[in-house]
């Protein structure tokens, strides 16, 4: 799939970010088509979460350019940044729900603080979001009283209640079992189609990421080393892509070697 400039919702050019001497992003460039599910794959420590936080304006990149809906996001352009934040949402790996607020109050928070809607309109919008995510019956519960899956759905309800054009998902399946991982990716794909937002997901779950995405990129050591469709990713003979894609098969051969006493733990663990 190739996209013209007007079809691109987010465009990133040559993004750099360092923490002291540690280079986390070393010139990342990416183009996210409007209305797509775009997944950035990569091993732990590759800089995925930092990349996402730079895009979501949580971390300030050292250099590089970000264009949202054709408009550059300059560091000193407060109006553009505010507009960007209002049109985006971020779903955190930890969900980042307010534990002292009920589910309903959590969902209502962004509407109360960023819109001029009346209390009644806010309540209706929140109940609608909770109903669409099948957690309306738990509106009065606190996050700690909900299961992990429900908390994830609640975080998604809070993310979509403002009707964003772009939703960032930071490791949405981290720490979940395979069934829940599938459910979360299915949920992202389902609601992305239902609400029409663009989803930018970072994850290290290759199989689920490939199935649920329209486009994928592989981030390795602060650089994008592959970008394309899931089919292109599966067919790629790029060494890093192969290593990441075929990690399960590699695990089998490593374990076999360890059991036969021919090998020890991999050096890059």
């Amino acid at each position, binding site marked *: 799939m190739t996209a013209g400039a007007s079809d691109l919702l987010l465009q990133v050019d040559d993004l750099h970010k360092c923490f002291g001497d540690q280079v986390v992003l070393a010139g990342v460039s990416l183009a996210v088509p409007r209305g797509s599910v775009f997944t950035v794959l990569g091993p732990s420590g590759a800089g995925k979460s930092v990349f996402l936080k730079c895009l*979501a*304006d*949580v971390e300030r990149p050292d250099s590089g350019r970000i264009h949202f809906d054709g408009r550059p996001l300059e560091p000193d352009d407060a109006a553009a940044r*505010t507009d960007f*934040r*209002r049109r*985006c*949402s*971020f779903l*955190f790996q*930890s969900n*980042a*729900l*307010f*534990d002292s607020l009920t589910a309903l109050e959590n969902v209502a*928070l*962004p509407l*109360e*603080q*960023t819109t*001029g809607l009346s209390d009644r309109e806010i309540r209706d919008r929140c109940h609608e979001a909770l109903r669409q995510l099948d957690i309306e019956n738990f509106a009065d519960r606190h996050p700690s009283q909900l299961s992990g899956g429900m908390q994830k759905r609640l975080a998604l309800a809070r993310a979509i209640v*403002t009707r964003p054009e772009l939703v*960032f998902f930071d490791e949405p399946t981290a720490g979940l079992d395979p069934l829940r991982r599938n459910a979360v990716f299915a949920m992202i794909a389902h609601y992305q189609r239902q609400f029409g937002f663009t989803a930018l997901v970072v994850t290290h779950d290759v199989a689920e990421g490939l199935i649920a995405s329209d486009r994928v990129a592989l981030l390795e050591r602060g650089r994008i080393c592959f970008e394309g469709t899931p089919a292109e990713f599966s067919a790629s003979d790029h060494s890093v892509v192969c290593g990441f894609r075929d990690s399960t098969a590699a695990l089998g051969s490593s374990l076999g070697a360890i059991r036969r006493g021919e090998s020890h733990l991999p050096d890059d663990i």
Partner: protein
Amino acid sequence: MVSWLGRETLRMVSGLGDYALFTGTAFRSVAHSRRLGRRVIRAIHEQGTLCLPVILIVGVFTGLVLGLQGYYVLNRFGSEGLLGALVSLSLVREMAPVLAALMLVGQAGSALAAELGIQRNSEQIVALETMGVSSHGYLVTPRLIAALIVFPIQTALFVAVGLWGGSLSGSLLLGVEPGVYWSSVERAVQAPDVRECFIKAATFGLLTISICAYHGFNAHRCRSATGARAVSASTTSAVVFSSIIVLAADYVITSFLV
């Protein structure tokens, strides 16, 4: 040694600037903070209602002790009739603003620092920022406004129960005529004393709550610890700094107003 001194001085100056910016941002956020009234009322409840028992208890005992000590000192000079003046002026000008502020730091300030520290650790503060919500405006501004209202009220209550405690020990236990005690109170306390009391209370409220909020809000920047220990360290330093600042500011304000 010299480089260490220079580094620490620079760190202190930078920290002071950062704190001033933090407090300034919180006040600037009043202009574009939505539904601020509800959060101010909630903060008033946290700093006011929940801290009221400790204020009343400490106030009564302070008054009782002042009554006892004052009586034995004044008795040496045959001036027991001035007990009301001694208790009231001690409370109004000095003890009530300082002790009420220290009690509020211990209860509301430490709770605020810990709450913000946990919210920082669990990414709730970053989440607010990604929603386009001012984290200063949402979390800090209502607490600062509430402090400007609550600290003077709590101080006034401290004075009231302290005077009552003084009359208990002076009149009920030591035999000073209640009429003499209360008329001495009435004659002694003048408008400038009350003004000084409220100026101190509001200043202490602003300083302590902003310091506690600053430490909790920046728990992730703690140099000596991370995670839960960083929250614990930032809460401890919030209470210690606030307590020192109360005493230092008390000296400065007193020297200007006396």
